[in-house]
């Protein structure tokens, strides 16, 4: 069976011994860092300009959207998460997910205490 052949091949993959995590050390180039740097500076400029305009209740939403975009860029490229193993990617995602769960659940409690007064 072709499936067995493939399995056998992976089973004897020498990398299982030499690199059990199948993690490779990816080097991000200075040019890529340069692009990231410029993107972050543009994001900063945008958030300052957006704050000068009156978007009503959307002002904080826009500011946070830009901040989240910048944070994701930093995490993916400056912190190399884009090039890391699945373990690291899932760990990072779990951290932010847990944080959102904690904020949401705590907020539900506070909002429901003074129901209708918000």
């Amino acid at each position, binding site marked *: 069976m072709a499936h067995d052949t493939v399995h056998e091949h992976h089973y004897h993959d*020498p990398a*299982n*011994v*030499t*690199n*059990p*995590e199948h*993690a*490779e*050390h990816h*080097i*991000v*180039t*200075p040019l890529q*860092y*340069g692009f*990231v*740097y410029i993107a*972050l*500076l543009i994001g*900063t400029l945008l*958030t*300052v300009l957006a*704050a*000068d*305009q*009156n*978007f*009503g*209740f959307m*002002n*904080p939403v826009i*500011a*946070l959207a*830009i*901040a989240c975009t*910048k*944070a994701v860029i*930093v*995490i993916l*490229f*400056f*912190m*190399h998460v884009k090039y890391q*193993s699945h*373990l*690291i990617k899932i*760990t*990072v995602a*779990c*951290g*932010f997910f*847990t*944080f959102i769960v*904690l*904020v949401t659940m*705590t*907020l539900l409690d*506070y909002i429901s205490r003074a129901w209708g007064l*918000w």
Partner: protein
Amino acid sequence: MDNSIATTEPLMPRETAVHEEHEHVFIPQHRHHFETEEQQREAGSFGMWLFLLTEIMFFGGLFFAYLLYRNWYYDAFVPASNQLSVPLGGANTAILITSGFFMALGVWAAEVRKRALLVLFLILTTVFGLAFLGIKYVEYHEKWEKHHIPGASFDISEFVNPPKDAAGKPTQHALPPDVAEKTQIFFFLYFAMTGMHALHMIIGIGLLVWLIARAQRGDFSSGYVAPIENFGLYWHFVDIVWLFLFPLLYLINRHPLQ
């Protein structure tokens, strides 16, 4: 080699088994309890990220407090927040991003084993970190002079009688004294959040000085990148905290809801 047996059979002479498969290359930083150097590096990154997750929870509590109190005392938070200087905060954001850029270049310099460049980039990271703290000092000092530090000597006059612009129009909506007192909560959170952030930067700069000395000695220019890489993760995390502090504290109250 059957890898599953090797990991479940402690009596098996692992070293011999490994030697059958590949030639042993001696790497000084490779600790004996890790199978390979990649595994050691992966475990190190994983541990660093777990630490950063606890930091997310730590700063997350402060961000949550800000979210809640801003909703409760919105009228007080608006003029208090607008009292901060956007040019100073914006400049500090650019300075911190620049510091993070040089940190990222430092990781690259260590990866391609360029000692002089690594030292240079780490020094630039430190210089921009110190510049950030310098501007932060200017901002804190202004709060001190205006009695905007929460406590017994807090002065609400600027919020009860807002300063007038050239045309004689008040720059902010005047607050009743009891609401104006609540601006202290904004300033308390401002100092708690930016102070905690600044403390992380001071710790980071201490670590940078130590890393510069070791980099100068050549510790990180022969393939041993992990300390630089993991410190980079910490430094970028501190950047990210500021990327959220800047809009939340300085920017989002310029056009208050009526």
